[in-house]
């Protein structure tokens, strides 16, 4: 049975949502900039150079790139859903990836001490620097997403594009390559530091990919539900599909995390104190309560229920919990090794700093969190993201 339910909003409502989105975007940018200025005059947290700004950046970047991997199920592997439902949400999925990366950029840009000198990275590019490559790969990633979205919009009205064989697949493959490159390099940003044993090694890239799939699926499902909440058939498909993604990605992530913890146990002197604190120490409540129970076990149960019963509320709740748990796991991964940093001088010393984000960084992070849905909502209003929807204004707009 095919029911066509269109989310027809009257134009007054659309204008209201657009105005609210624009106002929120401005508030988000203003708030983040104010937070940055505040951070400049606040007492610096010298002991933990990479704080909430880097945590937030990693969180949003993983969500954006993870969403791209989830999109590739349709764009590369050709899964359409039982009744071609995937076609109805794919453009929203691509736009989700693109809009989310802006929050990551906002945080990483304002997180550096002199953000207006950011272009020095491109001007004086040092090949051996992972951060320099991060800038290059993110530019490539965003560029490919823009091309993919433009293709999906333009192909509805330009027959010429449809006639070029394999163009869509070629673009999708390039997006996936960019995604994997970004993850691998992000893993090495942390993993190449011999000074930080808890990060050191090649394992972080894989950890980020697994974590990104969970976060990306959760993020895009949540936002697409909001847009498509009136289409019951699509909601049933999404509940089943995203629950399936959770049920594949969560156990893989959990297995990998267990391996990380076991291998940390074998490097007892330098890395184990971090995981000891996480598992049994002062961070145990956050790890077991938020990251494991709320962020893993309950979502698994909800995903099983959502898959069996095609339950929207179960899938949505699982998505929210995965996002919360995913954020906290990034917080633990990035902040805790800096708090418990080992130095070997006369004897092995483990630092014991206590980090709480300063007000400026909190404001920057809240700004990025406000920007995230606002930008998505604005894009959903101005771009023709529905299945078969043709652009009417300036080639790409509704």
């Amino acid at each position, binding site marked *: 049975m095919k029911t066509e339910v269109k989310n027809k909003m009257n134009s007054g409502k659309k204008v209201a949502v657009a105005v609210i989105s624009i106002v929120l975007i401005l508030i988000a940018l203003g708030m983040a900039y104010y937070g940055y200025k505040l951070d*400049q*005059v606040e*007492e*610096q947290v*010298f002991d933990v*150079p*990479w704080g909430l700004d880097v945590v937030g950046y990693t969180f949003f970047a993983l969500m954006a790139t993870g969403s791209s991997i989830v999109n590739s199920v349709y764009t590369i592997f050709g899964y359409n859903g039982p009744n071609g439902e995937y076609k109805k949400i794919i453009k929203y999925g691509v736009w989700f990836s693109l809009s989310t990366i802006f929050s990551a950029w906002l945080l990483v840009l304002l*997180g*550096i*001490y*002199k*953000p207006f*000198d*950011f272009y*020095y*990275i491109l*001007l*004086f*590019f*040092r090949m*051996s*620097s*992972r*951060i*320099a490559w991060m*800038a290059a790969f993110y530019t490539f990633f965003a560029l490919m997403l823009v091309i993919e979205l433009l293709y999906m919009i333009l192909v509805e009205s330009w027959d010429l594009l449809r006639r070029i064989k394999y163009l869509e697949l070629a673009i999708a493959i390039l997006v996936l390559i960019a995604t994997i490159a970004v993850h691998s390099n992000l893993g090495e*940003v942390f993993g*190449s*530091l*011999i*000074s*930080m044993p808890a990060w050191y090694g090649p394992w972080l890239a894989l950890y980020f990919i697994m974590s990104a799939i969970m976060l990306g699926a959760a993020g895009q499902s949540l936002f697409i539900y909001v847009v498509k909440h009136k289409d019951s058939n699509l909601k049933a498909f999404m509940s089943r599909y995203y629950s399936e993604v959770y049920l594949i990605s969560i156990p893989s992530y959990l297995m990998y995390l267990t391996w990380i913890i076991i291998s940390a146990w074998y490097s007892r002197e330098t890395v184990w104190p971090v995981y000891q604190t996480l598992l049994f120490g002062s961070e145990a409540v956050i790890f077991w309560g938020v990251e494991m129970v709320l962020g893993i076990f309950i979502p698994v149960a909800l995903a099983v229920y959502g898959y069996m019963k095609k339950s929207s509320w179960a899938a949505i709740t699982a998505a929210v919990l995965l996002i919360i748990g995913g954020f906290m796991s990034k917080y633990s991964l990035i902040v805790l090794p*800096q708090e418990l*940093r080992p*130095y*070997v*001088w*006369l*004897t092995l010393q483990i630092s014991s700093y206590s980090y709480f984000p300063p007000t400026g960084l909190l404001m920057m992070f809240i700004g990025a969190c406000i920007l995230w849905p606002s930008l998505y909502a604005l894009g959903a209003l101005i771009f023709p993201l529905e299945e078969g929807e043709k652009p009417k204004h300036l080639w790409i707009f509704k």
Partner: protein
Amino acid sequence: MSQQNPYQGFKNTGECNHWGMVIKVDQCMGCDACVAACTLENQTPFWNELWRTHVEDYELGDYPNSQRVFLPRLCMQCENPPCYYVCPTGATQIVDGGIVVVDEYKCIGCQYCVEACPFGARYMYTYEDIEKSKEYYGENTIHVVPHVDKCTFCYGTAPDDTNTPACVRTCVGGARVFGCLDDPNSEVSILFNTGQAVEINPELGVGSKVRYIFGKQQGRYVENGGEE
């Protein structure tokens, strides 16, 4: 960019390509004169207790086999510096004499080098520090833009042709020896080449050009205080 790298054009390191330092731990009495000299020479943000060099005070072992050790710490001027490789803008540079410096104008403050340094030898010099510096040093303030700061063996500021860092010039116990590692007859070369001066954490593979002599123990602290 009209601003210039403050380290360019100094070329004060003579013909030497590899300057090095040896710290004789037993001769350090913990007077902190080196810290004071460095602070004045390089205007380090002492108001935040951040230093290019500082002296750590250890009490090792249990009575009666306890031992007090003063351990001067500074940038190890690595041959293979992790901070250099991670810097995305090329602000961290290896200049003549093999000395690792930071171009303050190129530094964007991402603090990747702070994370990368295994010796904790780097810190952020903030806008607040610049204002404080102006209060203390007036028009003689040398740091005018925020950047990541570190020991440079007083590159460009050592007087005359000595090339000798302030901490070495001021050390009353003669605990710090500075010289050219290319000259086989220099004291640092002899201490390096005879194995008397040992590298801290050689497993990191960074090739420190600052090494330590631990006196009787000829190495790390030993449990019985080195007594037979």
